[in-house]
């Protein structure tokens, strides 16, 4: 459903019999990736509860292809850093990120993951932003962000994935 929504009319060629999409491999791969994002189930603080609410029936992120919450980082495509990143937790987050297979995406959800949020001043154990330790694709403000905001962030990520270009690595033989 989500896949066909993004299809340009011009791409659909009416060959006698069935409509066939003629497109680049890039578009097809990107469409596949953006519409079946598997998330790492991993919550840190308040934002994790809103993440659960987004997965629950009322907001239902399965509509956007996030059907599978994956408990293991090895089969996850996206990590939502939902909460405060602390000094003791940082090595664990880095390890989880490194275990994820390429291509991988990171959403920094909430003020804490963006900049430290309420814990930015006078705190000795909070790392001021998830982007200090891992690369972040999308930032969602709020403390905690509403489920609608998380869905908006996910849609933005999907748009970002659709714009990915493939480069041929010339050194690779």
């Amino acid at each position: 459903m989500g896949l066909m929504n993004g299809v340009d009319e011009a791409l659909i060629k009416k060959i006698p019999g069935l409509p066939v999409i003629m497109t680049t491999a890039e578009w097809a791969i990107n469409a596949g990736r953006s519409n079946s994002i598997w998330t790492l189930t991993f919550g840190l603080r308040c934002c994790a509860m809103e993440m659960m609410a987004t997965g629950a029936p009322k907001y239902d992120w399965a509509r956007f292809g996030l059907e599978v919450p994956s408990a293991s980082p090895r089969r996850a495509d996206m990590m939502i850093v939902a909460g405060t990143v602390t000094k003791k937790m940082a090595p664990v987050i880095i390890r989880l990120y490194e275990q994820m297979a390429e291509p991988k995406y990171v959403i920094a959800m909430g003020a804490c993951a963006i900049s430290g949020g309420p814990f930015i001043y006078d705190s000795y154990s909070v790392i001021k932003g998830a982007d200090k330790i891992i690369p972040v694709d999308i930032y969602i403000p709020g403390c905690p962000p509403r489920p609608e905001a998380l869905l908006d962030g996910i849609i933005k990520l999907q748009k970002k994935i659709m714009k990915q270009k493939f480069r041929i690595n010339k050194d690779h033989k």
Partner: protein
Amino acid sequence: MTIKAPFELEKLSNDEYILNMGPQHPSTHGVLRIVLKLDGEVVKDLYADVGYIHSSVEKMCENKKYEMIMPYTDRLDYLSAVNYNWGYVLAVEKLMGIVVPERAEYIRVMLAELNRIMSHLLWYSAYGMDVGALTPIMYAFREREEVIDIIEGMTGGRLTHNAFRFGGFKNDLPKDFMERLQKFIGHFNDKIDEYEALLINNIILTARTKGVGILSKEKAINYGVTGPSLRGSNCAVDLRKTAPYSIYEKFDFKVCVGKNGDTWDRLKVRMDEMRESTKILKQAMEGIQAGEIMAKVPKIIKPAIGEVYTKVESARGEFGVYLVSDGSDKPYRIKFRSPSFSNLSVLREISIGSKIADVVAIMGSLDLVIPEIDR
């Protein structure tokens, strides 16, 4: 940073091995690491490693004015944030001798009880997922969103409300509040029956939880366990009854207790508590009168020199605030006595000897919130 091995590997016998659970594990409700020493499936020893979300709240509070601390109490326990606001507000009010108007007290009680229901509903759905039932979340979140909508109308926030003020409440009730609450109370008791039929009285769950993780009354008190986990061990302690704060004396409700102190009893107590909460809500709706919602409070909050400890019954147990004031506009020392901290420390005691899968069931029944332990 080094990650310690809490057990000495050289001392393991041939049949024993070490299993690491967490910090990223779906059943640890956040970031809690548990290291288990196993012999086959049987747990020989257990070590809980906490502190992964320690964000130095107590130190920060020493550098902040009294009004600025309120949002941090929300973020200690985001599931029953209102009770945490309340504990803190009570401490400052007691130090300053502020008397809260009755209407504000009624609003506080209603908000706290709605919050308790909200917290127990999340526990219910998370517990279902812990033991492998993925449907309960679909049912419980249906009602939870309804409660959140009512609370959002009252305070403007979904999880972290920050609606309490020293001496009263931020705003009066919205116009359609009574109507919505009436509608919710009208059908909620039937829904609790549905939850019980779906999970709590389910034959598979009862087989998994009855007689597992037995916590005796003496042991529970010795470990400082409070809240539903203590009441499951047949100990009728509820701060709303035993050390009443606010206007809880006016309400007629029962303290729910379990019989044997096993995992199933702790589950059942929480389900019964939701029923009692609806009872309190009903009485509060009838009892609330028109009036002021804020007492006269000085603009600059500067409590006199002294110290105070106040405690409230949160959804997890006794939440206390120990506040030392030196007469300035910032607290000299503030300590949050969090219920989950003591509740988790008993886990080792009750899970030794059980199977590895039972550890997850026992841990879920203690209803832990990790940021509250780590602070």
